[in-house]
């Protein structure tokens, strides 16, 4: 569905990505882990076509892409439903997506700017789902959310993804989050970013051992991790 083949990218003289190769297979829940500032968002921009690779190839074999960005990307001046119909023509589907993320009970005309941070994230997720994506990309969507809201949202997300068989690519620097959601993980190094290791089909029983391995790997490469993961 998505394949990076020896992809390199530079901002001017600074090499950000150095010969990155990995793929996201259809129907899988892929995780991409790397230290902050390693170029994860750049990889997403290469996927969306907002940036072009300096070298190598990005093969995109999907029709519709859903994207939840790290920062707020809502139109705060308009209502909940209008934020969804901004990208999706099907009003009924938009209403179903609002229900799915638990915002169905709110007045649909309530302005997005008046929502709490957690609700805004839910609305962004609903917007991404409302286009019925083949591939759903989430770029650190839960940063800044409290633990309770995060766990509730992750559970809802997994439920939806299973029901719709959507391919899911989850980009984060938080290993715990990635371990909860994803089956396969790709670990990136600090800049110039390379793929350190790939973990495929991680079973529940192996998750603790895999986490230990990832932390060990990142420490060896002197990557800066969030405090709670050290």
């Amino acid at each position, binding site marked *: 569905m998505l394949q990076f083949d020896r992809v390199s990218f530079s901002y001017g003289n600074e090499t950000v990505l150095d010969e990155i190769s990995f793929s996201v297979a259809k129907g899988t829940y892929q995780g991409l882990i790397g230290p902050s500032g390693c170029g994860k968002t750049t990889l997403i921009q290469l996927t*969306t076509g907002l940036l072009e690779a300096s070298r190598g190839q990005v093969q995109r074999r999907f029709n519709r892409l859903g*994207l939840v*960005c790290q920062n*707020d*990307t809502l*139109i705060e*001046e308009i209502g909940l439903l209008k934020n969804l119909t901004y990208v999706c023509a099907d009003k009924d589907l938009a209403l179903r997506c609002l229900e799915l993320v638990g915002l169905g009970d709110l007045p649909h005309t309530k302005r997005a700017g008046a929502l709490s941070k957690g609700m805004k994230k839910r609305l962004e997720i609903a917007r991404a789902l409302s286009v019925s994506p083949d591939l759903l990309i989430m770029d650190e969507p839960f940063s800044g959310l409290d633990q309770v809201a995060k766990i509730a949202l992750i559970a809802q997300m997994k439920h939806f993804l299973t029901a719709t068989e959507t391919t899911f690519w989850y980009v984060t620097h938080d290993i715990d989050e990635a371990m909860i959601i994803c089956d396969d993980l790709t670990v990136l190094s600090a800049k110039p970013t390379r793929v350190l290791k790939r973990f495929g089909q991680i079973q529940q029983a192996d998750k603790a051992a895999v986490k230990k391995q990832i932390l060990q790997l990142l420490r060896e490469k002197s990557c800066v991790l969030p405090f709670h993961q050290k």
Partner: protein
Amino acid sequence: MTAASLLSSPEIYPLMTTLWRTLAAFIASLLLAIVFALVGQINPLCKAVIKDLMSFVIRIPSIASISFFVLLCGTGALTIYLSVMTVVIPVACLGILGIYEKINPGMTTINRVYRVPFVRQAFYLYLPTLFGSFHAIFILSYSLTFKALIMAEFLGGLSGLGYGLMLRRETLDLNQLSAYILLIALAGLFSQSVLERCARWLTRHYAPI
């Protein structure tokens, strides 16, 4: 003073003429400024061209544009409208472009990823964003319209408060001139206050959070 005597006053006609012209020139200028600013959002080239054009026009002194239109169209209403719009459109347009530069850059990503048509971007993103920060531009543009219009009437008009001001200057009576200046200032203040209330009511759903 009764309402009947006020309405029969010889000053009511130029006052109403000026207020009507101000309103018409203001609305036309603002609409055109919004159109220019929206066109500037199509792509970076359009934005650069419109920004440079407006930055050029804004530097033309209003006295120069009035003189130009007097020679081009003669004295009268058309000259007044064109002169005022030349002054107001660049100010309003650059103000609106300034608001748009504050739009969340992440929305550019969303627009491209979801291939949102430009018309939908204009109606859902750019216009609501504009209304949220509309009032500062509104007040500035209206004050500028009123002042530019009085000057245009003074130099190129055949009626209105600006034309009346010119006639009173000819009498060399300072008291009469002072009273007339006071009337102009009060008319501007009052009309702006009424219009501001109307605008707040019309854009009440887009009030800043």
